């Protein structure tokens, strides 16, 4: 066990965990932030996507010991970001969710995409969202919501 001081959603959080514990499980079980989801544990589905220093990251394969003082942003705080808020609102406006389990990760990936590429092409969308699995296959509405959010970013 080791103690880490993490910067999560702008707040300093102290955790006492095994150094190999993936960030995902520290968020979910130690910090009780369950908006970030476990889907596969091998970075193959994207349900666990968070931002680490603004970069979309699969938290299920990043050991907490590697985080250091990097800034972690999760779905719980993404509305505080202007792009994040617009993406969330577009998701609601387009009635994207079905079971909803993967959508935290989808939204985190979409926010990262739109921050880097405010006017994405279909190909940009397929590349950036290509690792986020949705078993309900809400993909058509995900595309629509990303385009809708993009239009509102101008």
């Amino acid at each position: 066990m080791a103690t880490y001081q993490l910067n999560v959603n702008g707040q300093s959080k102290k955790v006492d965990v095994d150094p190999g514990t993936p960030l995902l499980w520290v968020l979910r079980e130690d910090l009780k932030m369950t908006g970030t989801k476990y889907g596969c544990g091998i970075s193959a589905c994207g349900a666990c996507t968070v931002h680490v220093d603004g970069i979309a990251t699969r938290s299920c394969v990043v050991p907490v010991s590697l985080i250091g003082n990097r800034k972690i942003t999760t779905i719980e705080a993404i509305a505080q970001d202007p792009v994040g808020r617009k993406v969330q609102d577009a998701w609601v406006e387009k009635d994207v969710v079905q079971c909803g389990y993967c959508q935290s990760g989808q939204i985190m990936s979409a926010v990262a995409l739109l921050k880097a590429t405010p006017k994405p092409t279909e190909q940009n969308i397929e590349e950036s969202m290509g690792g986020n699995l949705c078993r309900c296959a809400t993909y058509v509405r995900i595309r629509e919501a990303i385009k809708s959010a993009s239009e509102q970013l101008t």
Partner: protein
Amino acid sequence: MRAEKNDLHLNRRSFLCASTAAAGGLLVSLYLDFPAFAQEGRPSPPPKVYPPDAFVRIEPSGKIFITVNRLEFGQGVQTSLPMVLADELDADWSQVVAELAPAAEVYKDPLFGIQMVGGSGSISHSFQQYRELGAKTRAMLIAAAADRWKVSPNDCRAENSVVYGPAGKSARYAELAERAARKPVPNTVRLKNPSEFRLIGKKVPRLDSRAKCDGSQKFGLDLDLPGMKIAVVAHPPVFGGRVKNVDDQEARRLSGVKDIFEIPLAKGTGVAVVADRFWTAKQARDRLQIEWDLSGIELADSSQLRAKFKEMARRPGNVAVARGDDKAMSRTPAARRIVAEYEFPYLAHTPMEPLNATVSFKGDKAEAWVPSQFQTLDQMAVAQALGLKPEQVTFHTEYAGGGFGRRAVIDSHVPLEAALIAKRFRDTPIKLVWPREDDVRGGYYRPMHAHRVEIGIGADGMPAAWRHVVVGQSLVAGTPFAAMMIKDGVDKTTVEGVEDTHYNVPNFHVSAHHPVVNVPVLWWRSVGHTHTAFVMETLIDELATRAKMDPIAYRRKLLKPDAKKLRTVLDLLDQKSAAWRKNLPKGHAAGISCHECFNTAVACAVEVSIENKRPKIHRATLAVHCGLAVNPLSIESQFQGGIGFGLNQLMAQGAITLKDGRVEQSNFDGFTPPYIGDAPVAVDVHIVPSTEQPTGCGEPPVPVISPAVVNALTRLTGKRYRNLPLAAV
């Protein structure tokens, strides 16, 4: 492993009894009362009376809580059933809050007689029930207002959570609720005419949208209870394997490990690991050295099974349908005969939220939290494992991250494992998690199938004789469902979509073989239609091509006169897709299919090209006849998503295979469902206007997509694609 003999909590013999019971005997005593399938000569039970107070609660704040007798796992019933009730209640929709019902008698499916989600029945079975509940509650509120004002209820009307009376009188539902609750529940109520609906038939956004976009929606796996421990189970590498010996020394060295012990499983035995955290439990499980006893166990091998099934399909099986003249085939000249053999693999459901169940055992009672499609059976299984009666188990329905049938398991094996572990940790909630690897390797798949079809074509280009053999494991043999679903040795779920085809073939013979294989199988969204619609719709397309006819016109001509829903959707599809089908870019082709299941008819047109030897789906147009469309917005979503789910069959790595009894895939890197680039870029859904009884929308989207895509591919390459998953095109 600690000595079990000295363990006060674990009495091995009684555990094994529980295991045996769970594997088959547990449900024998269950009286599956399916009123919809009442046996001849057995009187139907009288219609159930549902007390409104079990479904509606109006609080002083004005908030109206509506209880949903179903699991919400994406299908949108958490919004649609409250819409139905709120419409008849004349409730202020902005004040409606939906709650998922716990397991209880009153929440059983009115037709199936158990509490469940399946058969695309959530709306179709509860539509009338929820309308009546809303109308009765409204009548009670009006009666309360009439009492207060000393006027006739006939002089009062309700609108938007307010009752209006004579002389400008009005009262909010919230003010009337307490008095209304004491009024008698009316036996009969007038229901609205469709023209009076304010919510039903409107595009109403989901009630759970915001919570599912900001991370606040809790699913079963998110449950966090005081003192809760996390459990994982080391399952045998082969279905039914038993623990021979365990070395858990390394595992127990990990800080946070609470206990490690053997448990019986629905099939075989396993080793449970209980720890403070999931990560610790999983690490500890990885450190276990387990020797397994696989003696006497069949080691299933999918390539051997494929050959065996193919061989079996060459002989007729148990007869499902024999219509017309059996000699018609032999009279058809060889040049006008087609013989087609098809292969379908095992498919996993892999809902995004890994399987889980939480159980807390308190001696004379227990509590369970399960994202369950089968609350009645899961509650019984937990009770049985703990030596309790079902009513001693408070059973909470948790929101589920998908399911597609995987949370409707007759042997309740996941909640059962959780209960057996919780039994050892009295007053401690145990959350059992099946890591993704357990789910992918854990069985309960859509079964493998082989089909062999011989068609004799008439001089007019239409099929005159059709002999069809289906080979696949039964989903229900040996369970209480068998009596209802197996007839003359044929499991309905194996041949549905063929035996009840709406195509008019005069001489028609369908039979089935049900080999027994040591791989647990289960219904997978749309069940038998996943493979039967593929076979039917690719063959019909082939016949249309041979007859040099337009695929839509050919289908129309071949449909039986009474196939009204399918005709309507084919007409609508033709109309909505004609423009793009006639202007396809070079290298693109259109593919057509149609299918009716769960009383809903769907027609599909897709635009496909080939990129990197895979189909690229540019668009899909769907026409749907589902009776009265309760929430067209959620129906549109179900159809857009459902066809994406159906594409699983075409994915290069979209199959489960076994070698030496072991599943060869373990996660999404080996079993790979469709991602965004694999799904259609755009899907337009057109719903036939109707005031008929609403029919299912969860499963009917799934069957149509893969045959439509393959029919388009055939138009591009001239090849037939009869073996799934789809290899390089």
